[in-house]
């Protein structure tokens, strides 16, 4: 039985909550009250059909993206495809790697077109699309272990930065990862680009064939996973410092390369309490680690 999409204001009266199947969005817009309500209404209108649109092309979105292959038709699906396209020749990647960021981005766009907002965000389970006008800013906290919440770092993004998307990937998260990072957070020009890059960097934080890492073919956990028989990480035993550094090194190399290509702005990579940050040297917005993580690392 199909459940209807949920559209409601959260009890604080400020934030909008949209939920449909696996999509769960928390949205907040700031600006003139009339603009905010117009934006929320537009978001809700756009939202109700978005899951059905994606599902129409689900088999294609779950298969390995290839250049010159058949491209998806839907606007969100096209965004997903474009986000993973830069990676598809080097690695196995499906447009699903960017689904959360792309949905967030599409909803945010539907809000900013009809209304003039000071700032707004659409948070799709940690993959966030942001809008900033003029001199407005967002302060953002970063968590390394979704299951053991504690803030390890924060960053501030202002309108002048080009950053409009944040995404996090890790083996403990809801989506599968081929790597062993607890969390890889990426800042990029768009949420869809951040989402795809976080997946790619997360996969690269790895120790191939390490006996302390439990991997299971994705299909054994989720029958119709887009990752098929690829081994996804289900457990990581405590690692020695040199092992953690080796895993982080391999992730950092990929993150540096993506930054050099302009695919990402910066990234924070976390594994078992150790964090490495890849960011431009003179960045006005960069990820700062709190003293707590310095104690660990």
């Amino acid at each position: 039985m199909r459940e209807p999409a949920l559209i409601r204001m959260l009890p604080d009266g400020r934030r909008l909550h949209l939920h449909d199947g696996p999509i769960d969005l928390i949205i907040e817009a700031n600006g003139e009250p009339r603009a905010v309500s117009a934006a929320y209404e537009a978001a809700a209108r756009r939202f109700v059909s978005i899951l059905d649109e994606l599902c129409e092309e689900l088999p294609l979105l779950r298969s390995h993206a290839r250049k010159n292959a058949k491209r998806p038709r839907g606007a969100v699906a096209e965004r997903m495809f474009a986000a993973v396209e830069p990676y598809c020749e080097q690695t196995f990647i499906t447009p699903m790697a960017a689904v959360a960021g792309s949905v967030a981005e599409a909803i945010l766009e539907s809000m900013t077109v009809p209304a003039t907002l000071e700032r707004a965000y659409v948070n799709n389970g940690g993959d966030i699309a942001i809008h900033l006008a003029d001199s407005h800013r967002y302060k953002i906290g970063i968590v390394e272990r979704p299951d053991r919440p504690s803030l390890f770092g924060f960053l501030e993004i202002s309108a002048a930065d080009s950053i409009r998307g944040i995404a996090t990937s890790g083996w403990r998260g809801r989506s599968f990862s081929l790597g062993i990072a607890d969390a890889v957070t990426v800042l990029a020009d768009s949420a869809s680009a951040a989402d795809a890059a976080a997946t790619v960097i997360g996969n690269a934080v790895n120790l191939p064939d390490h006996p302390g890492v439990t991997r299971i073919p994705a299909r054994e956990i989720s029958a119709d996973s887009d990752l098929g028989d690829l081994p996804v990480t289900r457990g990581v035993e405590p690692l020695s410092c040199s092992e953690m550094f080796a895993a982080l090194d391999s992730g950092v190399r990929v993150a540096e390369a993506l930054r050099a290509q302009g695919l990402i702005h910066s990234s924070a990579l976390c594994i078992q309490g150790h964090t490495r940050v890849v960011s431009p040297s003179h960045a006005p917005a960069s990820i700062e680690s709190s003293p707590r993580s310095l104690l660990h690392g």
Partner: protein
Amino acid sequence: MPDVFPPDTVRCDACPVLCYIKRGHAGACDRYANVEGELVRVDPHILLDRAKSQGTPLVPFLEREGDWDGKILKGQETFVTAIGAGTTYPDYKPAPFIVSSEVEGVDMVTVVTEGIFSYCGVKLKIDTDRHLGPERNLVRAQGEPVGHVTTAEYGSQMLSLGGVHHLTGGNKSEGRVTCETLLDLCNGREVELTIDEGASVRVAAGRPPVVNGQREERMRVGCGSATIGMFAKQWFGKVDDVVVVDDHITGVLSEHQAGKLLGVRETGIAIQGRRSTPGRYFQVAEPGTGWGGTNISDPLTILKPFKTKFAWPHLRLLMVSTTGEQFAYYELDDALRPVEKELPEALKESVGRIRENCEPALTSVLFMGGAGGSLRAGVTENPVKLTDSVKRKLTRVTCGGAPAYIWPGGGITFMVDVTRMPENAFGYVPTPALVAPIEFTLKKNDYALLGGHVDYVRPLADVLKEKERQRQLVSHAQNPWPLKPHIGSSGS
């Protein structure tokens, strides 16, 4: 369905993604799962209904359309538990539900969250006189160490299971099995445990323990000596001497202090075993499953001949076990030998009373955990103030509506009887750690004073409107109603 999927894979039709969900797994949304081949919504959020009697414990609440007639919410009081509330992610955001409800004119606030506890364990009290194993020895489940034998208490053996060292300090399999064992025990399921150099036990909360395949029935009322002390007055004048047979301490009325005080005459009785103090004997026989936990079936085997200097013909003697399950009555013949006779009416009552004072042997499971700083931060901006408020009894802590005992000292370390919580109140995360519900209830103005997330407080009626994820249960009859305002400075 493609034939590559196992036969008990289900296809979820709750949304157009139409996930194929394998048995024991959840769909892409984490809200629908395949439980034993059935598609089940897995996140019901449990509300407790205050009811005078326990009645039917489970009232479905719009789980399927049309099942529910809407009666409960109108007439009765409702308490929102933390079961299925979900944890805030991360916890320094306000807890998922901060609910206000007016009770007897006082504005109460309940902060509801599910805590993730890697510092947690269970304390088991197993009612048995049998030797389960040496103190400090390891307790294992599926061969993995999950805890240890701790002290023997009155009529029972305590085991301590779990704790952070077994959960996260050992190897992966130790952590996983520990988590599984704790989860099963907390959710009322039976668990098999083996003790190094000791017994194997099957235990479940609120049920009789099974020790080496043998089910325990009753706890003894006390040791043999204590039983003499308790019943001496009832025996005085109706019988000349009483022996309470016990593997631990066998008691003899005429020699015991309690008998002496009443003026019971010396009878010349002589007992096998090692005399401890007057009227108290150790090791009258070997341990076993006979009288009073000994191996004897004929109680006369522990008696030596009566001393002729003191004994007399027709002397009346009662022998009884510590549970009253076995008893025999004798009178001495002219040669001062005991001859079994029918138990006189006057003594039947006292034997019956021993029996009725032996309570059913059970296993009790107390979950013990500590509310960490970040969990407390979900309640207030200044976590230490919550600790302080709990210690001053301004804030009541409950787990799934069940009362929790708070340890003195630092932090909020609590214990709760899992049988008083709703079914399946516990979950786990693969860390491994247990997920347990925890609710903090206090007056609204006290909440504001301790820096609570007042802006997030929602009226109860508002929470109840979100029917889709809720389940209504009748509260446990023995639990005080969590919202009853007897706490705090103005309390009665």
